[in-house]
């Protein structure tokens, strides 16, 4: 008897945290949410991005055929459009995107400029060559070399590779994976909801918070690292890319029916307020803090890094709300861990 009494607090704890999720889960249609993600966010993101990548590829081909200020301007414009479009796709590297390693081959930076200048015929499918391809390499060739025409062949190779990867992943999504994805609507580590939320959150932490803001601001070291900013050779694009990615994060959370609606259906509150409102408000705070920053984050960290650190803090505040409060309420386990560095 007395032994059992000691267990009571644990039993009570277990009850309070489990009750809302298990009981209410049935009232929220997870399949409808997955269909929304697939049909209104992910597949359109692939379609838009593949189209943008093809336009970029064509403009680079036109530039290679007839290098001029005009064709270069067009190619640079398509580069900006495609890079922006990528921000909408990058959060969704689940399924084919993960298998084909799209993000690793399209946007790993900083790029290795010495190798870009030296040995242009690297096999782009090799894992060791992820930092000599994709947008960061295009950024260097188009804006950092002084004479992009010298690299016309390389530019074409790189844009063709992006088209190839994106088209393959898009074809997999539209050719059957979409239905598999929506049908896998259970609640387990390998179910689509759990996987997508994990992939999105890992992207938010690593690519949005750390990659675009924290690392250039020197948050993981002692001094700011302007050369680690996104699109450093363009020199005026990193804030736009960041804001687009932030909108993509917010849209995934807030569009209907998505995680905000799911949390509301479970009436998840924190400090009396709906958790979804808290998270949305935090996205707004981040957007507000970014508004006053320089268009180039490399410039921003050189001139006033404090403002950049404040943006980081705003992004980090949402990591706590999402990773702890939201995941607990939805009964989703975090399945990614920090690499241990070796």
């Amino acid at each position, binding site marked *: *008897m*007395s032994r059992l*009494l000691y267990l009571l607090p644990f039993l009570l704890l277990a009850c309070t945290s489990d009750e809302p999720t298990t009981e209410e889960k049935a009232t929220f249609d997870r399949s409808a949410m997955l269909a929304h993600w697939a049909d209104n966010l992910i597949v359109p993101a692939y379609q838009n991005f593949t189209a943008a990548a093809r336009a970029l590829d064509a403009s680079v081909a036109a530039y290679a055929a007839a290098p001029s200020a005009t064709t270069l301007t067009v190619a640079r414009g398509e580069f900006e459009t495609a890079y922006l479009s990528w921000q909408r796709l990058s959060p969704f590297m689940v*399924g084919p995107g*993960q*298998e084909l*390693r799209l993000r*690793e081959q399209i946007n*790993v930076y900083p790029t290795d400029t010495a190798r870009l200048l030296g040995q242009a015929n690297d*096999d782009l*499918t*090799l*894992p*060791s060559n*992820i930092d000599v391809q994709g947008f960061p390499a295009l950024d260097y060739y188009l804006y950092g070399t002084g004479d992009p025409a010298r690299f016309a062949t390389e530019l074409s190779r790189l844009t063709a590779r992006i088209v190839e990867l994106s088209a393959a992943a898009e074809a997999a999504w539209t050719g059957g994976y979409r239905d598999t994805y929506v049908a896998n609507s259970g609640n387990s580590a*390998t179910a689509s909801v759990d996987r997508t939320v994990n992939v999105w959150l890992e992207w938010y932490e690593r690519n949005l918070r750390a990659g675009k803001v924290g690392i250039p601001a020197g948050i993981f070291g002692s001094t700011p690292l302007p050369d680690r900013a996104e699109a450093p050779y363009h020199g005026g694009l990193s804030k736009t890319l960041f804001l687009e990615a932030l909108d993509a994060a917010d849209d995934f959370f807030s569009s209907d029916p998505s995680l905000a609606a799911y949390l509301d259906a479970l009436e998840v509150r924190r400090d009396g307020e709906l958790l979804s409102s808290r998270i949305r408000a935090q996205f707004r705070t981040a957007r507000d803090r970014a508004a006053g920053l320089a268009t180039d984050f490399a410039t921003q960290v050189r001139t006033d890094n404090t403002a950049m650190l404040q943006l980081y803090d705003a992004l980090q505040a949402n990591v706590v709300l999402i990773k702890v409060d939201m995941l607990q309420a939805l009964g989703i386990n975090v*399945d990614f*861990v920090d*690499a*241990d560095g*070796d």
Partner: protein
Amino acid sequence: MTMTRFPALFLLFPILFTGCKDDDDVPAPIVEVPDSYTFSRGGQSTVAFDGQSTRIAMAEELVAALRDTSRTEAELLAMYRNEGPNGEDVAPFSTEMLNASDKSIRSKVAAGADYFAANVTDAAAIRSTLESHLSRQVTEVFPAWNTLAQAGQAGQIADGTSTRYVNAGGLEYNQAFAKSLIGALMLDQAINNYLSPAVLDGGQNREDQVAGTPEAGQSYTTMEHEWDEAYGYVFGAAPDAASPLATVGEDDRFLNEYLGQVDRDADFAGIAETVFRAFVRGRAAIVAGDFTERDAQTDILQAQLSKVIAVRGTFYLARGADALESPTGPQASFHALSEAYGFVYSLQFTQDPATGAPYFTRQEVLGLLDRLYTDSADGFWGVDAASVRALGEEIASRFGFSFSAAAN
């Protein structure tokens, strides 16, 4: 009635236990335990473990060289042996201090007195296994450095944004070597040699200790120095080696790193402090001539440092099993499985203080490794998640922790 009495009784327990302990301590010499690993005689520090810091530094350079394709097999072996094929002097390291040293990694691999004093057969086999990882890295993996690996083909695999280099079976020799060395060098020397009563009580050590007779030309006694040498294999690369807990996990890529990693797992938090305190207390007991207390600390250190190997082995098996089932498997699992391979190999150097034997014998370890990896084109390419998890469960259960505690 029972309910009201229980809490009161519990309150008394600590007092009762403390009371007993104090009584036991009365006849023994008084052990003065300092806060840091600081001991002196006549105003001079008696703490020294240069040889261990040196070997850790040599091992760091050798492991880094395993990813440098400009290195030759002869160079790697020279770093391992710190001598040439005919015993001639070599200078394979980047610093004068290491090149001038007469120490080597190889001479202390599988050289712990408890297991290998009368078993040079196994010692020789272990040394050549480690050597073969070095040779095969150069002969099998270096030539395939810019090739995409597949079953039966050495080369690169992607691991997130990292690139790993594997043999035809998917094994990273650099990981197998580094993680095997943690057991074969650092752990074996620490817990099966320098902390072993057989070594600590060798020769005239006890008499010298009680009389306070230092080694010729030194401030320390032989027994004190031997204990320090064990300490050096765990904390010898720490910037503040007297108070090393602030940086534990960051001081080397061997035993210190993984003591720190296990300590950061909430299920095993405090293990680094336990290990450090046992080192300090045991060393203080030696100074006081309390050899019973010294051996009690040896027991703690053998159990805890052995557990570090088991927890990390289980952790990487669990991670590898998960990765095998991921969309990017099986390749995505090879890095974790290669680390696991080395940690499992290291289990043969653990010591259960209750038995004086390893938690897993060498034969058992070779059996576990056969189930994890076959030295063939199949290798990790053919392994399945369930059998990898089963290995982890087996290790966890033998050591008495849960698989899930180590896995997260």
